[in-house]
């Protein structure tokens, strides 16, 4: 067992911290308020090679793994960027680069990866559908063969970054569920360049994370060449798991990073803020919940790194998923508590935009719902780890 970071990993953390310090909470307050994409930040992390961490060197990346990506994400988030330190990297590097690195054809790798590594091509993933939700296998979007082309039709929802991405990973059914020999059969993945006139994109106003747009997407006879499929056809479900597990780990890291940011800001304030005689930071009522959530966050962090280690060492998706789900459950519970109490420490000021903690509250609120709800993660633990009966019918 080895818990220490390598020199390289420490340096990645240092760089991430330095970048985060140049993009402090007030930068994100403004971007969020104006609902603007953070171009300067994206340029900075691209130039520093963060978008290529998991891309092999022959395609212009660093050839590292999820562990290094999570280290970078946490430091960015915890040192000022909050969710933004994770979000943009998830969309482009996890949804885009990782799916291609893991399963793309040589031609697809050559076409997309070098551009992604430089930060010149943003990505998004069109998976979730209005009538499917977490029940991914129930998706209705279809891809049908017409001569040597694929024709895609259907509707997607909550597709973040679709408004500006140059690339999209589409998840569609190539064999209808009714005709599939098993539920997981018949799902396929496709890569498409955006914009495309057959793809309509409509942003959905939302609660937080407004430096990125989350959209409804519809495909209306979208015609794609044969080689836009990520093979093998119909077996895409297992390929998606290699994206969804890292996505889960990234969001766990976001919960940890956002919480640490909020905790640190609250601690700083609590040391100086006096309402009665002593600084409020001396009150156990405020210390204990922060201490408790901090301890849980550190525990979740270890478990999340374990999930990442398993993933980087090609252990099967189910074992990776177990640790990724357990880490997510713990991190989010602890994170909600941490940000709640950080806000409590600020009192009325915590409700103002100027103190940023309300924004982190809105950010952490997403992670209890996405990538899956806490309840679905618990159901996974109940069924797949504890061996209890499936608690919902499919």
């Amino acid at each position, binding site marked *: 067992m080895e818990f220490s970071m390598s020199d390289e990993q420490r*340096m990645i953390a240092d*760089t991430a911290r330095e970048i985060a310090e140049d993009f402090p909470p007030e930068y994100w307050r403004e971007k969020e308020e104006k609902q603007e994409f953070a171009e300067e930040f994206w340029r*900075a992390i691209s130039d*520093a*090679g963060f978008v290529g961490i998991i891309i092999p060197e022959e395609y212009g990346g*660093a050839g590292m793994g999820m562990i290094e990506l999570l280290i970078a994400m946490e430091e960015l988030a915890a040192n000022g960027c909050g969710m933004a330190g994770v979000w943009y990297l998830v969309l482009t590097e996890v949804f885009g680069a990782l799916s291609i690195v893991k399963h793309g054809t040589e031609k697809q790798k050559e076409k997309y990866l070098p551009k992604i590594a430089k930060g010149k091509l943003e990505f998004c993933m069109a998976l979730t559908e209005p009538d499917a939700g977490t029940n991914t296998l129930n998706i209705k979007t279809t891809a049908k063969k017409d001569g040597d082309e694929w024709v895609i039709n259907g509707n997607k929802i909550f597709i973040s970054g679709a408004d500006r991405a140059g690339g999209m990973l589409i998840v569609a059914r190539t064999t209808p569920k009714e005709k599939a020999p098993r539920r997981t059969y018949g799902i396929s993945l496709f890569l498409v360049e955006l914009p495309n006139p057959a793809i309509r994109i409509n942003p959905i106003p939302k609660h937080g994370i407004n430096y990125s747009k989350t959209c409804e997407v519809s495909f209306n006879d979208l015609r794609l060449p044969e080689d836009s499929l990520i093979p093998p056809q119909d077996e895409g479900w297992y390929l998606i798991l290699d994206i969804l597990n890292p996505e889960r780990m990234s969001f766990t890291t976001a919960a940890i990073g956002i919480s640490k940011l909020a905790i640190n800001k609250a601690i700083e304030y609590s040391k100086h803020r006096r309402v009665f005689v002593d600084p409020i930071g001396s009150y156990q009522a405020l210390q204990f919940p922060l201490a408790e959530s901090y301890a849980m966050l550190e525990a979740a962090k270890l478990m999340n790194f374990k999930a990442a280690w398993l993933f980087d060492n090609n252990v099967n998706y189910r074992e990776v998923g177990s640790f990724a789900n357990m880490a997510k459950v713990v991190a989010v519970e602890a994170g909600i508590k941490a940000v709640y109490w950080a806000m409590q420490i600020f009192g009325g000021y915590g409700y103002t935009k100027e103190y940023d903690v309300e924004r982190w509250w809105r950010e952490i609120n997403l992670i209890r719902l996405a990538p899956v709800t806490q309840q679905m993660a618990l159901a996974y633990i109940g069924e797949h780890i504890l061996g209890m009966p499936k608690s919902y019918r499919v």
Partner: protein
Amino acid sequence: MKIGNGGESLKIFVLAKHAIDTESEIRLKDEKSIDEKGLIYDINDWDRYAIEEAIRLKEMHGGEVTVIGVGNNEDTLRKCLAMGADRAIKIPLETGMDPYKTALAIKDVISEENFDLIIAGLMSQDCNNALVGALLASMLNLPFATAVTSVKVEDGKLRVTRELEGGYQEEVILQLPCLITVQSGINEPRYVSIMGIKRAKSKEIKEVDVKVDKEMIELERMYLPPVKKAELITGSADEIAEKLIEIFKEKGVI
């Protein structure tokens, strides 16, 4: 030697100090030393600009950048290598707060090397002496300029702008080889990139032992600045005014 427009490459040495971060909380262990516990070290801020300037000059004119550091400074040397320096020299000598000793140690090592230009930060963020660069230049008998805010290589010469007080500037031409100390803000230092971090792994950090017996500075006593106390004056306006006058007289203000 024809450097710059002639297209010949530059051999540049950069001095980098692993210095206490200014945001560290300083505590004293005793009257002569600082408590190391809880101190955060990083590359001296001015030296970040120095290494960036060296890398830019190398990118423009070709050549080699060597970073050199005194003390226990591997993290800072590694960082410079990750930014783009080609090699590093570590002098594992404890020089404390003595800039003369530091300069002597560097002189011993650097005089064995070929170089066209030495770049140092104007000062260090911990001691603020602004001496190592100038001392080293005089030890090596080199022309030098301090507080440099821009650099241009012209036909074996260096045209630099120096920052003066009161917003004035001075332009100086130095014959290469020479030494400059750079002011912060001369450029925008790049972030260490992930690829740079990977490349740094295979770059050499050479350790060179140097003995310097001379101590130029004797440390007598270290102390934290006394905390300035605030006094709240209460009472009626007349009483407050009277008390104020008394204080001003006592302090010799009026």
